[in-house]
């Protein structure tokens, strides 16, 4: 009952004119960045994070900036489907599975059916996940209150281990990416001893540490843009979309054929989203696979099944809310986007983690309330403004790319008013581009940069407490099982390799 009362008061705060306005703007920005091939929610929140200082300056709190960024995240999940269906290019990796059936539907002249199905499925996924988030988050936060330093470090280890075990990328490159993120997070002064660390070439700019924002904008504003310019060389053709009221009503009626995919995606997406390293992309792919596997007509998948559009779209929305659960309750982000959101919370003076629910209810509940509001706003704007988004998709990349470059540079300077950060951001972006060409995953590094400043003190405090005995992570009732699972996940690829070798020899 307390939860419902808190949620209701949160929704009322989220409906205040300033918050509602920010949610609408955030959703529109999110729909745009989600729809634009090469841009995703993470690019949107990373590039616009410096601008939230402005919002904080006006409103004086962290709630409104967070509502703005969360709305971008939400809108981007809806937007990804627009380009997947009309261009055949996923607007973001989270909408890859939407192309499987969305594009065939568009080519068959039913783009409006696919777009409406994607919007309604996204709404359903968002609603289911919001309800589950509201139910589970306070519960998990209460459990997490009993966590000490070893438990928190074990959870961090688990977050990194899932990247290694389940990430699907090259193992040594993933581990390298995690480690370099953690090392870069140590640049500056050691918070425990006060000693300077890794001040490269005695450049004073490094003494304040490498700021997360600089790295995030470098990787997602500069590196990703260079990558997109390099990889998108061929022209694309946009499918015609019938957006008359009659066609939309007809498409809404046809959505009844998509209930199975929507239900599977909504529930599966949420739980996959909770897992670090998983998130919306594997969530949507998994939902598509399960929907196809359990379908009575699996042959229709890949040829224009509405269920095949609904399953990944409901899943990616649901997973995006699921990824917020560990970020808000444990202080551990489940995806690069939530890592940026978490960094934002730290910059605004909040301490993400279980205490957030007890110490900052005025922040938490309006934010959760805004999830519900943003979900409604997103589906309405998405359905009402399909022609506008189709028009925006025609914006040439030779105009969008320089705008993003300028925003990245100006945003980085505005955040800290230090040209050193701007230079560093561009250099990081170029390095990220080169590493990406060679399949080095960048998402684990971004997560590591956020978690590094939390993980290191927890490890050091734990070892100080245990007098240097690493068994502290194994012989405590909560930390032990988490550490064991993390170790199993780290060695999972090795087990798979041995199994494959044995099969080959057999």
């Amino acid at each position, binding site marked *: 009952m307390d939860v419902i009362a808190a949620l209701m008061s949160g929704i009322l705060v989220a409906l205040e004119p300033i918050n509602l306005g920010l949610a609408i703007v955030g959703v529109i920005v999110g729909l745009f960045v989600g729809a634009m091939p090469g841009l995703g929610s993470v690019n949107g929140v990373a590039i616009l994070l410096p601008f939230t200082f*402005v919002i904080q300056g006006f409103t004086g709190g962290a709630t409104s900036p967070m509502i703005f960024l969360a709305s971008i995240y939400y809108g981007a999940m809806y937007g990804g489907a627009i380009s997947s269906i009309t261009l055949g290019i996923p607007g973001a990796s989270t909408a890859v599975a939407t192309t499987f059936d969305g594009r065939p539907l568009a080519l068959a002249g039913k783009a409006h059916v696919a777009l409406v199905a994607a919007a309604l499925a996204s709404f359903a996924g968002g609603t289911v996940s919001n309800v589950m988030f509201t139910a589970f988050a306070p519960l998990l936060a209460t459990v997490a209150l009993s966590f000490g330093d070893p438990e928190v470090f074990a959870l961090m280890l688990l977050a990194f281990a899932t990247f290694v075990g389940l990430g699907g990328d090259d193992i*040594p490159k993933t581990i*390298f990416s995690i480690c370099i993120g953690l090392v870069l997070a140590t640049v500056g002064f050691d918070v425990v001893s006060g*000693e300077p660390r890794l001040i490269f070439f005695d450049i004073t700019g490094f003494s304040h540490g490498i700021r997360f924002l600089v790295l995030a904008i470098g990787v997602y504003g500069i590196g990703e843009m260079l990558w997109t310019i390099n990889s998108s060389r061929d022209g694309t053709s946009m499918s015609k979309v019938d957006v008359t009221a009659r066609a939309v009503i007809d498409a809404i009626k046809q959505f009844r054929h998509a209930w199975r995919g929507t239900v599977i995606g909504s529930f599966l997406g949420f739980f996959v989203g909770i897992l670090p390293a998983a998130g919306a992309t594997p969530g949507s792919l998994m939902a598509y696979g399960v929907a196809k596997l359990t379908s009575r007509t699996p042959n229709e998948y890949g040829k224009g099944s509405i269920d095949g559009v609904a399953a990944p779209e409901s899943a990616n929305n649901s997973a995006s809310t699921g990824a917020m659960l560990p970020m808000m309750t444990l202080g551990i982000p489940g995806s690069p986007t939530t890592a940026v959101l978490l960094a934002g919370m730290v910059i605004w003076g909040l301490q993400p983690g279980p205490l957030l629910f007890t110490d900052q209810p005025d922040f938490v509940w309006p934010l959760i309330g805004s999830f519900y509001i943003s979900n409604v706003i997103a589906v309405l704007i998405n359905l009402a403004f399909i022609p506008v988004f189709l028009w925006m998709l025609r914006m040439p990349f030779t105009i969008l790319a320089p705008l993003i470059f*300028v925003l990245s540079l*100006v945003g980085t*300077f505005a955040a800290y*008013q230090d040209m050193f950060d701007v230079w560093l951001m561009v250099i990081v972006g170029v390095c990220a581009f080169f590493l990406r060409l060679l399949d080095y995953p960048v998402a684990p590094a971004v997560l590591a940069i956020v978690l590094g400043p939390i993980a290191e003190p927890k490890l*050091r405090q734990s070892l100080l407490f245990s007098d240097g005995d690493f068994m502290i992570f194994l012989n405590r009732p909560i930390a032990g099982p988490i550490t064991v699972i993390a170790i199993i996940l780290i060695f999972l690829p090795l087990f798979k390799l041995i199994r494959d070798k044995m099969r080959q020899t057999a």
Partner: protein
Amino acid sequence: MRRAEIVTAFILGILSIYLMWKSGEAPDWNPDIARFDNIGLIEGEGPGSGFWPFWLSFIMLICSVWIAINWYRRTSPPSQSDEEFLDGYGKRMLFVVGGGLFGFLILIEIAGFYAAILAFMIYYVRFLGRHSWWATLSIAFGLVIACFFFFDIAMRIVLPKGLSEPLFIPLYELFL
């Protein structure tokens, strides 16, 4: 791609060794502490300041060796690829876009943000994008004006002006 994979692994290995060396650095103000004294457990203090970055850099070094072994065994996709690391288009793109970005940065240092934004937008939209002069100048000036009113006037975040500073004095007198 294959050659780039091993060259990168080598560079990252060297970087890892440098980071290990740097992590073990003792603070200038305490000559009693020798290099690498801080990478282990210190009696009564727990791990030293270099413990975490040193051992992480060590893992990075192991990963670099691992990547090199995978390269030798041709088990990773880039080590199997005969494609160029950057083909003609990629090299040209990096030169014109990456070079343009660094030019943008240098111009910020000399002529300030607004003049640099104007020059960069004209360079990119007109010369790389081949859009009309009308579209180019509308976007470039529109962006500069929007940024000026948002940052300098509304937010009072003064972006560096460099040599172009005198041009902004009348604007400040008008709007501030």
